[in-house]
């Protein structure tokens, strides 16, 4: 399903295009938002939730990583259906990276930080990303994307 030229920027048209993939769009936008925050305020990288990610990604590359993953996911979701072979795998790969990132942020808050409302949020995001992997790949065969 592609965005129609006549109603491409209306809210109903956008919701119709993304259908039940709106959770993936939200996760991708969260990543882009975190990247914007890290660019505007680099001190945000000192937050406890980023402590364990720092083992794999240095602070200087944190924003770049979030931008890259978020952008790839958004592109795959916008082009959904247009790339029947690579689109679902791009969505699944983005969801896997998302699950790894959110789980490490959740773990950071659990083991390093004080009790935070971010713990259940990141846990649910991790579970949601794992479900998105299944949803992106289940029976896509180029036609039946979910």
């Amino acid at each position, binding site marked *: 399903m592609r965005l129609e030229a006549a109603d491409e920027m209306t809210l109903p048209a956008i919701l119709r295009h993304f259908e039940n993939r709106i959770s993936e769009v939200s996760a991708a936008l969260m990543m882009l938002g975190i990247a914007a925050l890290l660019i505007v305020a680099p001190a945000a990288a000192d937050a406890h939730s980023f402590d364990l990610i720092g083992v794999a990604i240095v602070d200087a590359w944190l924003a770049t990583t979030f931008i890259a993953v978020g952008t790839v996911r958004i592109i795959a979701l916008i082009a959904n259906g247009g790339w029947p072979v690579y689109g679902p795998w791009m969505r699944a790969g983005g969801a896997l990276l998302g699950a790894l990132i959110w789980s490490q942020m959740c*773990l950071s808050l659990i*083991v390093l930080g004080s009790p935070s409302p971010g713990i259940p949020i990141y846990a649910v995001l991790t579970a949601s990303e794992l479900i998105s992997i299944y949803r992106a790949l*289940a029976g896509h065969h180029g036609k039946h994307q979910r």
Partner: protein
Amino acid sequence: MESINGKAFEALGPYPIVQAAVALLILSIALLLVWRASRDKAPAREPVPQWLMMGPLHDMMMSVHEVAEETRRTNDLLSDCKDVLGDVLRELQHARQTLELIRNESRMR
């Protein structure tokens, strides 16, 4: 050498095993879901959902079917009427010819 190893382990942070365990758990679940997704087929989307065929729409379709049946019967009856009227016409023509013959006979006398 030991100092390099020490620095490397320090760079990993205090919870490398926990981190690796969580990452492996996530990867394992992801692999399981990819395998499961490759087996499952998405249900084909029907152009018209079945529930739409219930209720008033179903009644309407039944009515259309009955109207079509009645129309077929009417067509049969009209066809029979046409045959009968054809017979009547032939009879009338025959009667007219007979009357004309009678009239001609009576004039000749």
